[in-house]
């Protein structure tokens, strides 16, 4: 393409078409441009257009097209390959680099930004080696005095240098930085000084100031990038200049730069924020060198805080600034900066207290955006808020000055409470601040699970509770001063481990009462507080608050909880639902009288939310509550399972038919629970569903796998013979599911669960034809991708198989797959790996299975496998004598739903749908050690002398000693 007017014209037309809303016009134009972008001069045509076109829209369009072209094509990837040729010829590259900087600088801002981006893309590849004069060219512009040009240079420099903030240290990188520093640091410093001087000469010229401050912001950002990797010699030598000026900028104010906007941060705020970042960078990384300046910054920053208003636009600046102070005051060597009583008082009074005040914006959030308010206040997603920052500062100060700070604040708390007492309806915010202050002062460590775990001993929490919190909650009007009500409830919640139990018991009816409050925050907090109180532990691992103590309140509690779900804004309130679940779990059989009404309300809720599930936690606790209702009721009256099925199946069917993905895993779990409640043969309603459960689409969703496996296991337990007789054609499909699961490292254990149930429950003849296939599949997985988890499950399975079908059958099927296979598995897998098996039941299965191999498998006695007999026995004794795994105590009530194991986004295991551990050898073998002794005895009777001679020649002494112990315990001896 020549640089001709005709080509410029053509290009203009095509560019114009790329802006057309009609794809039929736009797409071909885009295609055309792409097809010519490999031509020589194409980028130069674009540059000409963006400079000279008569139409502004074309200029902008050309600049964007140019930037994208550079982005796609500038980089030459390694050695050139056929399909990725170098589309930009060398002469174009040279021409672009020669022209782009002046062009960028003379362009209007909109185009300047595009070109600046393009420069940084080019720079990333070519700078510094292939673009040696870029820096000089940029630096020379600093002298131009034209701040439009200067800002262009600064912006470009920023986009070139900002990668220093995240790249690894390397010779190449540091060589570049050194080069940049040599050429750039001094001019930048001079520019910085000059700009600051200009700011004072133009102190009365608003538009000039805006440009100058934009420069200062960019300069401050460049400072951050250039100082990020390490403290450069130049900046260490010139720290005085930079820090002195940064310091004075922090203290600078100019009416002309103040903005009217309450929300959006202005130039002044942005600059000061960046300076706080720069100071924080130095304080974190170059503490030793920065130490002389740090005190000044501390002072400046707290003065800044003292003089900064309450508007939202200052929030980031204020919280940055407070966090800076908080991080500094915790360090031992800066302790002295804060220890003066006057300093402490002034920080407390002027920095902390004002930023803890309840602002108009908070009030707005409390009323209109309560979800966000709760999230911030309760769940700590308040990292950038002023209150949080102020709270962190209190904690930081308390590290060294707990006594003095507590003393200072006690005075404030008292005076604020007095203000409140004078005129509550006007001064209620004072009390709010007082409570917040006490809370932040008293709490030293906090977890979601336990509330405050470490408190400031200088604060009398119970006294404050009795004198200032309880009275508010006792007030007859639940809707008065909602903020204070929420504060009070929150106080109970977080200090629940500090306030004595009798006070907590007194609070329970008050909390139940506040479930009726109209304010979403108040009734949510009440529900949450109850839920937390119900999970507190007393002695002996029981709940602190017992069902008996709750007896007088059961009805009102349940009523108010369900009523709270009907309050506006709380129809899917997860805190309330969680409180319902926790109440059921605590109250147990005392809820039975209310179950008919409860289950109706829950199923209605379920139906309603299944239209559009949006609150995962709410839904989860709802299903947990359903499970609890079923368990508690059926424990007392197993027949009741039918009425639950009646109530639930209609909704469940709808959920399955509409494929409500979020709910399906839950439905399977509830169905498993119900099915397991049945004592007799599987009901036909379940059988009708069976083929649908094998549909691949269900198994493709990872979240479905654990509950579906569990459900299929329940089917096999209750209905194996029905499946064998009525659904034999579905057995391959069932095994297909097993195969699907076994193929996955994540899900293979689920495949084994299923397989174990099949082997345990299905009539042998129904799976006979598939048995060999099953083993081949397992061996294949073992060979190709062995993991510890797989081996553990595999060992349990083959031993279960051995128990079910006999040791000889196991040996025969192995050897029918490949000669000597049985020996190989014994030698390479069972003997070396058996100790990895964990879990009581799993170990027992393996012990019994191996005992069978040792004593009921003739080839072990008279073939080449005999040499494995002693090693196998030794491995078995090892399995016995390993320390037992810690069993999990039966305290599911305390399980925090978020903390249940099995981190998987899609699957949420219902704690209360849990099933009891199944022990397939429970009845057969009680004590596996004695069982071994007895079996050996039997074997030795069958072939006298053989066993004893093997033992005495090869078994190691320690194992032999253990074995003699077993024989003694079983009162048998070997012949």
């Amino acid at each position, binding site marked *: 393409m020549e640089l001709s007017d005709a080509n410029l014209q053509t290009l203009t037309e095509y560019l114009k078409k790329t802006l057309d809303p009609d794809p039929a016009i736009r797409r071909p134009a885009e295609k055309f441009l792409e097809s010519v972008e490999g031509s020589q001069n194409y980028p130069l045509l674009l540059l000409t257009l963006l400079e000279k076109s008569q139409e502004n829209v074309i200029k902008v369009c050309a600049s964007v097209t140019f930037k994208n072209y550079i982005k796609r094509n500038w980089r030459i990837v390694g050695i050139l390959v056929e399909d990725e040729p170098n589309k930009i010829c060398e002469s174009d590259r040279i021409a672009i680099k020669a022209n782009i900087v002046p062009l960028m600088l003379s362009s209007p801002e909109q185009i300047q930004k595009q070109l600046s981006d393009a420069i940084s893309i080019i720079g990333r590849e070519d700078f510094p080696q292939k673009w040696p004069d870029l820096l000089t060219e940029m630096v020379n512009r600093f002298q131009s005095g034209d701040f439009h040009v200067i800002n262009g240079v600064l912006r470009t420099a920023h986009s070139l240098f900002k990668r220093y903030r995240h790249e690894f240290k390397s010779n190449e990188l540091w060589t570049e930085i050194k080069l940049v520093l040599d050429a750039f640091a001094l001019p930048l410093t001079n520019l910085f000084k000059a700009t600051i001087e200009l700011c004072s000469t133009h102190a009365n010229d608003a538009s000039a100031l805006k440009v100058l401050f934009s420069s200062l912001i960019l300069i401050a950002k460049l400072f951050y990038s250039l100082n990020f990797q390490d403290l450069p010699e130049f900046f*260490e030598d010139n720290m005085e200049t930079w820090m002195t000026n940064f310091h004075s900028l922090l203290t600078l104010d100019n009416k002309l730069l103040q903005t009217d906007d309450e929300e959006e941060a202005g130039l002044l705020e942005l600059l000061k924020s960046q300076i706080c970042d720069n100071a924080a960078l130095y304080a974190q990384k170059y503490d030793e060198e920065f130490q002389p300046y740090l005190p000044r910054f501390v002072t400046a920053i707290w003065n800044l805080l003292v003089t900064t208003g309450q508007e939202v636009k200052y929030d980031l600046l204020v919280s940055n600034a407070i966090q800076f102070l908080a991080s500094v005051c915790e360090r031992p060597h800066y302790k002295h900066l804060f220890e003066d009583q006057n300093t402490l008082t002034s920080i407390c009074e002027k920095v902390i207290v004002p930023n803890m005040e309840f602002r108009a914006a908070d009030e707005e959030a409390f009323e209109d955006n309560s979800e966000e308010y709760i999230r911030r206040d309760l769940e700590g997603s308040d990292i950038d808020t002023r209150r949080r920052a102020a709270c962190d500062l209190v904690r930081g100060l308390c590290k060294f000055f707990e006594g003095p700070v507590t003393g200072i604040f006690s005075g404030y708390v008292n005076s604020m409470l007095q203000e409140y007492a004078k005129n509550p309806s006007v001064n209620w915010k004072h009390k709010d601040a007082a409570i917040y202050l006490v809370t932040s002062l008293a709490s030293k460590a906090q977890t979601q699970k336990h509330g405050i775990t470490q408190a400031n001993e200088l604060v009398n929490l119970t006294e404050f509770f009795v004198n200032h919190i309880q009275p508010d909650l006792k007030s007859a009007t639940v809707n008065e001063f909602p903020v204070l009500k929420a504060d009070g409830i929150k106080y109970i919640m977080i200090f629940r481990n500090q306030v004595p139990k009798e006070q907590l018991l007194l609070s329970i009816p008050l909390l139940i009462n506040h479930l009726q409050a109209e304010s979403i925050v108040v009734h949510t907090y009440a529900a949450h507080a109850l839920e937390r109180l119900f999970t507190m532990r007393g002695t002996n691992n029981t709940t602190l608050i017992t069902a008996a103590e709750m007896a007088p309140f059961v009805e009102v509690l349940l009523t108010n909880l369900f009523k709270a779900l009907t309050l506006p804004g709380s129809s899917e309130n997860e805190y309330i639902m969680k409180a319902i679940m926790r109440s059921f779990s605590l109250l147990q059989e005392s809820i039975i009288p209310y179950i008919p009404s409860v289950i109706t309300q829950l199923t209605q809720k379920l139906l309603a939310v299944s239209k559009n599930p949006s609150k995962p936690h709410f839904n989860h606790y709802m299903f947990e509550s359903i499970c609890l209702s079923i368990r508690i009721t059926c424990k007392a009256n197993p027949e009741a399972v039918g009425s639950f099925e009646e109530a639930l199946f209609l909704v469940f069917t709808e959920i399955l038919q509409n494929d409500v993905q979020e709910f399906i895993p839950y439905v399977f779990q509830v169905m498993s629970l119900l099915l397991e409640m049945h004592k007799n043969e599987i009901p036909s309603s379940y059988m009708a569903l069976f083929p649908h459960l*094998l*549909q691949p689409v269900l198994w493709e969703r990872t979240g479905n796998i654990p509950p579906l496996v569990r459900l299929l296991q329940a089917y096999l337990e209750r209905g194996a013979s029905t499946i064998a007789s009525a659904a034999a054609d579905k057995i391959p499909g069932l095994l*297909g599911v097993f195969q*699907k699961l076994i193929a996955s490292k994540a899900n293979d254990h689920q495949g084994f669960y299923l397989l174990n149930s099949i082997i345990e429950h299905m009539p042998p003849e129904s799976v006979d034809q598939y048995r060999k296939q099953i083993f081949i599949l397992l061996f*294949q997985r073992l*060979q190709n991708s062995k993991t510890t988890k797989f081996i553990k499950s595999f060992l349990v399975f083959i031993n279960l198989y051995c128990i079910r079908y006999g040791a000889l059958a196991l040996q025969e099927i192995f050897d029918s797959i490949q000669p000597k296979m049985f020996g190989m598995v014994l030698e390479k897998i069972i003997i070396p790996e058996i100790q990895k098996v964990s879990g009581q039941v799993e170990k027992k299965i393996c012990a019994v299975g191996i005992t069978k191999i040792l004593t009921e498998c003739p080839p072990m006695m008279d073939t080449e496998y005999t040499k494995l007999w002693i090693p196998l026995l030794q491995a078995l004794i090892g399995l016995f004598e390993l320390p037992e795994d810690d069993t999990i105590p039966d305290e599911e009530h305390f399980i925090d739903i978020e903390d249940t194991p099995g981190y998987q986004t899609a699957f949420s295991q219902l704690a209360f749908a849990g099933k009891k551990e199944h022990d397939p050898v429970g009845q057969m073998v009680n004590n596996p050690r004695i069982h071994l002794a007895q079996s050996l005895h039997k074997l030795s009777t069958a072939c006298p002398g053989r066993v004893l001679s093997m033992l005495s020649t090869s078994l190691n002494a320690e194992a032999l000693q253990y074995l003699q112990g077993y024989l003694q315990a079983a009162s048998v001896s070997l012949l």
Partner: protein
Amino acid sequence: KHRQHMRKFKNKGKDAAALRMQRVEVSIELRKAKKDEQILKRRNISLDVKEGSLSPGQDRPDEVIQLSLEEIAEAVNGNNPKLQLLATRVARRLLSKQKDPPINQIIELGIIPRMVEFLSGADNAALQFEAAWALTNIASGTSEHTRAVVEGGAIPALISLLSSPHMHISEQSVWALGNIAGDGPVYRDALINCDAIPSLLALVSPVTPVGFLRNITWTLSNLCRNKNPYPPLDAVEKILPVLVCLIQHEDKDIIIDSCWAVSYLTDGSNDRIQLVVDTGVLPRLVELMASTHLMVMTPALRAIGNVVTGTDQQTQAAIDAGVLAVLPRLLRHTKPTIQKEAAWTLSNIAAGPCQQIQQLITCGLLPPLVELLDKGDFKAQKEGVWVVANFTTGGTVDQVVELVRSGVLKPLLNLLSAKDSKTILIILDTLSNLFVAAEKLGETEKLCLLVEELDGLEKIEDLQNHENNMVYRAALNIIEKYFSGEENSDLEPQTGQDGLYDFSVEKQDFNF
């Protein structure tokens, strides 16, 4: 021109070899050279220094005579011994000014060769002395200045003066030679080749005055100093026995300089470290590491830090000398550079075999390490992260469990917000190591929870947005590996005609 901080790192060809190799420091420095922590390469003798032997020449005020530079040149080049002495003394005095001594002007007078001549005038001890002093001060300037002295032929003359019967003259030439040796490896080796070492060592005796001994020690330390190349091995072998005696001395300055000398000698390949280990000096170094004087502690720590970059046996020698008992205090030292060097030393011990890691645990290094990670200086925290990284690479599962129990996870995860991409990456690699250990114990889920509880998961998820590609990928990798699942596609069943999974597999030969 400051000494490049020793950055080589043990590499035993373990999995983490690549990780450790990266510890070789970039040779480009952005920082200002720090001089406060080590001795000066060159020393000028100024008139203000009046204490003891530091100013062996006595100037009485009435002797002070002014001469112009031209007059000095004339007199020095003349034949009048009296004037020669007078002019040399005036020149020496000018050179001894504390501020801006006129070294260049004196060199430009071209009188250095003449002064070198004066050195050999055994009959005029006063002139020998003044000339040696003047040359000492010229050599104390820049490399350029030192070169002028060397090119004036001073080296052999100064070396012969070492055996001068006048102690103050011999001491003066020790000083001058020290300045020349301090310039760099070339002149250092020039001195060694002129056989300076035996004459220097001969000066060390039980009756040598302390002040003199200080000078000798310092000059010896400069003969041990500098790399590229290192001083010849046979020279090192000659110096070492004397150095080992000097380091036992009770004078602080002698200790300091001999410590620095040992630290230079250990800053090299393992065979050089071995020479030092063989002298049995390690227990003394460890003792000095525990000194309350920063000036003593610093080079002793540096030397031991260098030793543990060596082989497992060399590291074991340092452990046997008791380094692990001293390190906790140093990890808690108020001075950031000490914290950092101590952590660096520990990181190399943690890179050793699991027996050494066990000793690290037994000696109670984990609590101070956790403290350092929690609130140490940033430079030290970075080294602390390396300790943990190496520990988790070479430690046994039990040891890693012990590490986690010590509370390392919280500060480690906090440092994921550090302003340094490399540190973040190493922490992510360390987390992967921890997960591998957890997998072996079947405790993966527990670790997942712990990481989540300590706000680590949130931070790792955030790092998936990190601008640095490797950081981003490492974070993504952890999330994918430990916070989701994976498939074994070759065993995946097909879907059959009935819409259900087909159950089928092709048999292959098995061999486990």
